């Protein structure tokens, strides 16, 4: 009897399987778990990544980014360029053409008026729009005809792809949100928790800060997608709990943001029920060197300022030796596992801006010792610490309180000790370290230490603003209340000149070339910044879920319509 049932089941599965690839809603339910619960489904009223991610299944922007960081069209026929006339020659306007026949999930047509309305919605000063920065340079958005929308800027715009590009600025339906303009925006609870969209799913139920239920959008533009009939997002818990629910108990198909220690990753992967996936954006864990003297003997206001060059770290050979002594592969293995990879670059991605700089990836303790030896740093009194002109090679190394960072500190200290450098460690509460309080001696900008470690990234795909942070005039100092991003106090006229070139350049290939040169000036050539680990965002999915391709440049999940059940 049992055997017969099983056989029948197998036959039925075989018959059903080919159909599953080509029909909407044949694969049942997909369950996602987020460590932070979803609180609203309108990205214009939230900064929460979890909210924007969940809303992305329902409402879509005109264009987005693929997993490589390239722009791709979503609701439009093609990406506007200067060549195809989509962007005006003087860079002051951009024209988008909607896909003909596009429908909202309620069956009404999507028109250019909806796009224009969305801009009006976010640009209303009383609305408190969370994405208003992306609309800041827009003069007006007008519907030329039903399919064509034209955005006019206040001036020439080198990057016109801000509003309506990427999951943070999707198109809202005018008919639904018409009554929610300005101060009324947050009060429209029904609209904000159940927007009508063009995406592969539509909302059927939403419990704030708990669960979101969705079903396949019957009017989705691709009749064969999505494969899943319903979708559930359960929020709450912590990273390790969500990872377990996918990797060990199998309660869920996908867990977002599961940053857990490598040991736990390995243990869970060994259970064989799922796998971790990682998306690498631009986040780099690095050691920053202080080019100015942080000595406590100096007067307050002169400490760590350009008046006093650093007695040790001004020597490029010391910085090169510090970098050479580090084994980045070990750091990744200890701290991040699948969630990181070793890097020598400040700008590790997107691929066109990443330098092919790999000289630092192998540890070279002997090479580091020789560099110091040749530069005159020798251990003359036999205490295991090198000195030069009576100055001991001794460094204070600070970072935030974080178990992975403390492990990194201990490891790097052991390598630096090995090449004859004395290291004192210090860890600071992250709230203080990143707090930027000009009165505290422990902020990362004030930098009252010789070297410090933290992670930073840039948003979007263009590193210009990020590289411009290391211009001479960006150094924190008492004059600017210690607010400046050039925390190394790096100052090189050649760098500033190259930055000017970058700002002026419009040709993408030329821009990439200059950006790579700037990156190398900071890392490869001078090691003012010692990059350690390129960190990604780690998520987990069950082996029974197919089609997952996570994205670091847009919402983490941009292809949920392609997900399917592995049978």
């Amino acid at each position, binding site marked *: 009897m049992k055997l017969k049932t099983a056989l029948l089941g197998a036959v039925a599965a075989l018959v059903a399987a080919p159909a599953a690839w080509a029909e909407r809603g044949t694969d049942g339910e997909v369950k996602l778990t987020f460590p932070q619960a979803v609180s609203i489904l309108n990205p214009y009223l939230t900064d929460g990544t979890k909210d924007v991610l969940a809303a992305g299944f329902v409402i879509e922007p005109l264009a987005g980014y693929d997993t490589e960081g390239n722009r791709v069209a979503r609701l439009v026929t093609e990406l506007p360029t200067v060549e195809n006339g989509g962007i005006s020659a003087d860079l002051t306007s951009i024209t988008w053409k909607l896909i003909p026949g596009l429908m909202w999930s309620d069956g009404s047509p999507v028109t250019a008026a909806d796009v224009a309305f969305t801009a009006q919605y976010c640009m209303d000063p009383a609305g408190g729009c969370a994405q208003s920065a992306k609309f800041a340079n827009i003069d007006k958005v007008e519907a030329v005809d039903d399919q064509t929308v034209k955005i006019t800027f206040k001036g020439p715009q080198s990057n016109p792809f801000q509003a309506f590009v990427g999951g943070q600025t999707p198109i809202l339906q005018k008919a639904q949100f018409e009554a929610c303009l300005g101060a009324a925006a947050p009060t429209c609870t029904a609209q904000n928790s159940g927007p009508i969209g063009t995406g592969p799913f539509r909302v059927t139920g939403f419990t704030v800060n708990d669960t979101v239920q969705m079903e396949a959008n019957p009017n989705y533009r691709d009749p064969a997608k999505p494969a899943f009939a319903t979708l559930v997002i359960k929020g709450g818990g912590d990273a390790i709990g969500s990872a377990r629910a996918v990797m060990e108990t199998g309660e869920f198909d996908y867990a977002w943001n599961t940053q857990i220690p490598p*040991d736990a990753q390995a243990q869970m992967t060994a259970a064989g029920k799922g796998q971790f996936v990682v998306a690498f954006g631009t986040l780099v864990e690095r050691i920053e060197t202080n080019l100015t003297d942080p000595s*406590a003997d100096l007067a307050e206001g002169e400490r760590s300022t350009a008046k006093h060059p650093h007695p040790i770290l001004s020597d490029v050979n010391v910085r090169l030796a510090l970098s050479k002594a580090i084994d980045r592969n*070990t750091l990744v293995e*200890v701290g991040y596992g699948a969630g990181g990879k070793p890097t020598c670059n400040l700008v590790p991605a997107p691929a066109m801006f990443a330098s092919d700089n790999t000289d630092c990836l192998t540890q070279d303790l002997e090479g580091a010792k020789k560099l110091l030896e040749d530069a005159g740093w020798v251990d003359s009194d036999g205490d295991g610490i090198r000195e030069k002109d009576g100055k001991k090679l001794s460094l204070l190394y600070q970072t935030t*309180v974080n*178990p992975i960072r403390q*492990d990194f500190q*201990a490891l790097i200290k052991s*390598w630096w000790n090995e090449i004859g450098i004395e290291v004192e460690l*210090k860890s600071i509460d992250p709230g203080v370290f990143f707090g930027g309080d000009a009165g505290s001696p422990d902020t990362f900008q004030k930098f009252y230490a010789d070297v410090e470690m933290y992670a930073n990234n840039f948003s979007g795909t263009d590193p210009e603003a990020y590289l411009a942070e290391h211009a001479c005039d960006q150094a924190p100092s008492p004059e600017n209340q210690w607010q400046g991003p050039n925390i190394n106090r790096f100052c090189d006229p050649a760098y500033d000149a190259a930055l000017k070139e970058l700002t002026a350049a419009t040709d993408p290939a030329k821009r990439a070339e200059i950006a790579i040169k700037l990156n190398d000036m900071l890392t490869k050539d001078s090691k003012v910044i010692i990059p350690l680990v390129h960190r990604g965002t780690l998520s987990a999915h069950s082996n029974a879920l197919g089609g997952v391709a996570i994205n670091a440049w847009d919402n983490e999940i941009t292809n949920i319509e392609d997900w399917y059940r592995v049978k």
Partner: protein
Amino acid sequence: MTDSAIPKPVSQSRAVWQQFRSHRGAMAGLVILGLLLAFVLVGPLIWRVDPAYINPDAAAMIKARNKPPSWASPLGTDQLGRDMLARMMAGGKVSMAVGMVAMAISILLGTFVGVLAGYFRRLDGPLMRLTDLFLALPLLPLLLVMVMLFRDTLAGILGPELGTFLLIVFAIGVTSWMQSARIVRGEVLALKEREFVLAARSIGTPPSRMILRHILPNVMSPIMVAATLGIASAIITESALSFLGLGFPPDFPTWGRLLFDGVDYLTQYPERVIWPGLAISLTVLSVNYIGDGLRDALDPRIRGR
């Protein structure tokens, strides 16, 4: 015949010791505390492994990570291949020293304030209001501010480790004397009205001698109890400070730090949390039992029963 009926008079210290020995919990506590002290003081002389040693050869370090207990490392190794036994010894030395010294400071301060407030009527009001003030202060933020303001200065003069040690014990000491001050004041107020004090005063004993000879010996037992409780809370406070990044440098092991470091590995390597947790619990428990026994032994009304 009569002398056999009257027991031989014994010296006071001997009587106290006899009473103390009859308290089983206190004796067990004394033995365990003794063993723990031997572990942290004598241990490193026998087990000569550097607690901060990480193999600079990365491949060897990776192999030595997260080892279970073995002859080479009886308590296993941690996530960076450091020997857990050596770290437990080094950590215990710091934690116990912090506990004892901070307790001594807080008891000295507390007794001083308590006796002055209880004995001199004019000082009572101001001193007790000061105590209330300290009790009302949120202590952790106060500690954080103290550490932030003075750490670099002290570290510059005395070196990072000794400087931090002194700062931490001082900070804990000056923020935990209030309970003992209140207890002592209450006892002194009661004692002041007793006949023997009146007798001593009637023969013109000056206040200083009165306090030292007549009052202090009689408030010893509550002070002892407060002291033993103080050790425990000082060890815990130090852990909290280390956790906030305001205690010792991060590579400097203490029991509190080992405990917090181990929490991340709780499911895979529970022993990382169990060892330091057990050591802290044993210290606190044994010290409490000793305090309990001492109180009984020092109280003449209980002694002999």
